[in-house]
């Protein structure tokens, strides 16, 4: 626990989802030394997480095999909590790796930190068994038994279909799938997919897995109730409301990029995404970014951006084919943003006594809308708990228009002994 491991490499990659894997393959195949740091138990990220006792999707296995064929060093169960530059301009990443301190020195860094779900507070959202939609998928894949459980899904985005299909196939009694976006927008989006017949077939296959369940568009959650855990949820289409009994309620409103490390190192963020050039380089020289942090666009775009970042980081030129693919996938990303834009009602579900910051139990009435996010933090402690505003930050941005405050290390709670072993060096020297 006290020993600090040190690694030095040409390219360090934070995150081993599709973007990080693609970047690592390209950089390592060019002969550079590569270190990949990932929080998960194995490469693949959230999207390629295998089902317990099952296999990852074919495309994931292909990429992971390709990664393992390189000499890239992969550190799993590793959370990066600080990033700085030393006098020579090299990056020094500090992480907690399976309970020990790890520091990685690298000339180039590729951020592939992925995205998390956006949660918006509503009365009852803090009850046990109210989970995210991707959250339900993650829990299901890691062994949660849902057979016979009454489940309602209410939220937004393309994740609803695959998660509904997984839950139904696992034996859940799925009573409603509610999408807040109006049906006209979702249909227009589906029509625009004619260029990608494979995607349309996938969607139809997923829908067929829960045909007996109502799939209501223009419908959203307004409250949940229960005592020790959720027992009932109320949904509305703006005209009529309906209460449904449930044992598991899955609610989330799309994805938000993970930007803590990018913000910490000073990468420019515009409209909630990391600004990058055609080579995926951020406004900080030698720091690249790929995948969801540059705009939530899904696995295909993440892979292409990852490849480009990996190629650019080793100083090679970007093949035209890859750049063209990126442009095409970016068009789909914009169509997704339009189709699943949040209706104003879902950002105003919280009542005065609804908890907004779950770590510090700060309620809506504790906030003054005239404050800045910094004032909100100082006066209420909102965003200062263990999740470091990962949940309430995105919510308050939608509800109050507060953009995140400056980021300071550690961006993840780190064990004190990991932290101390970092600073021993400094104290001995002084």
């Amino acid at each position: 626990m006290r020993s600090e491991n040190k690694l030095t490499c040409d390219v360090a990659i934070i995150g081993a989802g599709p973007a990080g894997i693609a970047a690592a393959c390209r950089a390592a195949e060019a002969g550079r030394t590569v270190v990949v740091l990932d929080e998960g138990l194995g490469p693949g990220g959230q999207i390629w997480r295998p089902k317990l006792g099952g296999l990852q999707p074919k495309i994931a296995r292909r990429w992971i095999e390709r990664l393992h064929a390189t000499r890239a060093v992969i550190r799993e169960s590793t959370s990066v909590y600080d990033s700085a530059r030393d006098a020579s301009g090299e990056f020094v990443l500090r992480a907690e790796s399976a309970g020990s301190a790890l520091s990685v020195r690298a000339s180039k860094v590729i951020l592939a930190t992925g995205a998390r779900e956006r949660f918006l507070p509503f009365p009852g959202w803090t009850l046990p068994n109210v989970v995210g939609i991707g959250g339900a998928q993650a829990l299901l894949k890691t062994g949660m038994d849902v057979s016979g459980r009454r489940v309602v899904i209410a939220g937004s985005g393309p994740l609803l279909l695959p998660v509904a299909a997984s839950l139904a196939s696992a034996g859940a009694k799925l009573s409603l799938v509610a999408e807040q976006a109006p049906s006209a927008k979702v249909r227009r989006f589906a029509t625009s997919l004619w260029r990608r017949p494979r995607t349309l077939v996938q969607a139809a296959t997923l829908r067929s897995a829960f045909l007996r369940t109502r799939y209501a568009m223009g419908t959203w959650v307004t409250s949940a109730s229960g005592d020790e855990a959720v027992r009932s949820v109320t949904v509305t289409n703006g005209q009529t409301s309906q209460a449904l009994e449930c044992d598991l309620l899955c609610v989330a409103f799309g994805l938000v990029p993970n930007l803590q490390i990018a913000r910490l190192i000073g990468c420019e963020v515009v409209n909630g995404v990391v600004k990058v050039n055609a080579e995926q380089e951020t406004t900080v020289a030698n720091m690249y970014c790929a995948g969801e942090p540059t705009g939530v666009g899904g696995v295909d775009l993440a892979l292409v951006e990852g490849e480009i970042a990996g190629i650019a980081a080793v100083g090679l030129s970007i093949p035209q084919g890859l750049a063209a693919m990126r442009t095409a996938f970016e068009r789909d990303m914009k169509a997704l943003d339009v189709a699943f834009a949040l209706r104003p009602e879902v950002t105003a579900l919280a009542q005065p006594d609804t908890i907004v910051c779950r770590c510090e139990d700060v309620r809506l009435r504790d906030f003054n809308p005239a404050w800045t996010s910094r004032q909100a933090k100082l006066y209420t402690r909102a965003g200062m708990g263990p999740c470091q505003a990962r949940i309430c930050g995105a919510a308050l941005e939608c509800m109050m228009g507060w953009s995140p405050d400056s980021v300071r290390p550690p961006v993840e709670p780190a064990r004190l002994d990991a932290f101390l072993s970092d600073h021993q060096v400094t104290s001995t020297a002084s």
Partner: protein
Amino acid sequence: MTLRRFDIMVNGKPVSVRSGSTVAAALLSADQSTFRQSVAGELRGPVCGMGICYECRVTINDVAQQRACLRVVESGMRVETGAAGA
């Protein structure tokens, strides 16, 4: 592929779990929905399932504040939740 089952101790009582599952998934499967109590005393359980929300914190083998969604069950494991009466 068949998955082995074994017991872990949750709040001093044996709970049957599937090997390979996370502590969070195992507890939810056993109808244990409360993992901790919030600063105001509310009951809380897992939300994000991926290590972000910190709502699934429990004590594992005497080490407090462990995220149950990031730990795989092991035989002989002892878990204490913050559930009332635990």
